């Protein structure tokens, strides 16, 4: 069975600064996907970024980037130039892929990020 660990229950960052959220996982599989999801207060959870395990290059989406260390089973999220709208709960998730859009996600407990003006 897979497990995902987020060791930082809460974090805060000053607006315009950079923050890194940690995530580690455990699996015996070699092919899998990793995700960061964001849930703003009272709103739906949205996908921030996705990484395929077979890709060595770290995924990037605008101000969001990951540091994927496969051997260490680490998948951290870096948010650059933090904005007030980044305030949210951030979930790291793992999934094997069974084809045809079939993902069964295993989530970490989440990190509550507060961006301070």
């Amino acid at each position, binding site marked *: 069975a897979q497990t995902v660990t987020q060791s930082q229950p809460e974090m805060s960052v000053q607006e315009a600064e950079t923050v890194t959220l940690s995530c580690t996982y455990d699996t015996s599989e070699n092919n899998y996907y990793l*995700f960061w999801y964001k849930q703003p207060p009272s709103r739906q959870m949205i996908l921030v970024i996705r990484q395929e395990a077979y890709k060595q290059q770290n995924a990037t989406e605008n101000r969001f980037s990951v540091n994927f260390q496969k051997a260490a089973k680490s998948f951290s999220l870096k948010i650059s130039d933090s904005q007030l709208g980044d305030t949210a709960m951030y979930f790291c998730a793992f999934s094997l892929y069974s084809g045809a*859009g*079939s*993902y069964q996600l295993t989530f970490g407990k989440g990190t509550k990020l507060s961006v301070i003006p």
Partner: protein
Amino acid sequence: EAGVTQFPSHSVIEKGQTVTLRCDPISGHDNLYWYRRVMGKEIKFLLHFVKESKQDESGMPNNRFLAERTGGTYSTLKVQPAELEDSGVYFCASSHSGPLTFGAGSRLTVL
């Protein structure tokens, strides 16, 4: 494109009562998932539909939970009778060939 819609957004019931949660996935998404987050714990997988068929229901906690997906469109998750430990946020998600799109969740409070 309309997103994944869930209702009610919040339901408060007493122990022993019945509650039905509904999820309307994105049109054309064959895959529909239910997840649950109990306070302070991880979001846990409950079950996965492919169209109207249950692909995997290994996460369903017990037989008080019944999920259906009529005609492969919307899905309902019924809890009968509800217990205190069923309190939490129930998320629905759907996908076609890409990553999951989540709804805003239905918060269930059992008193």
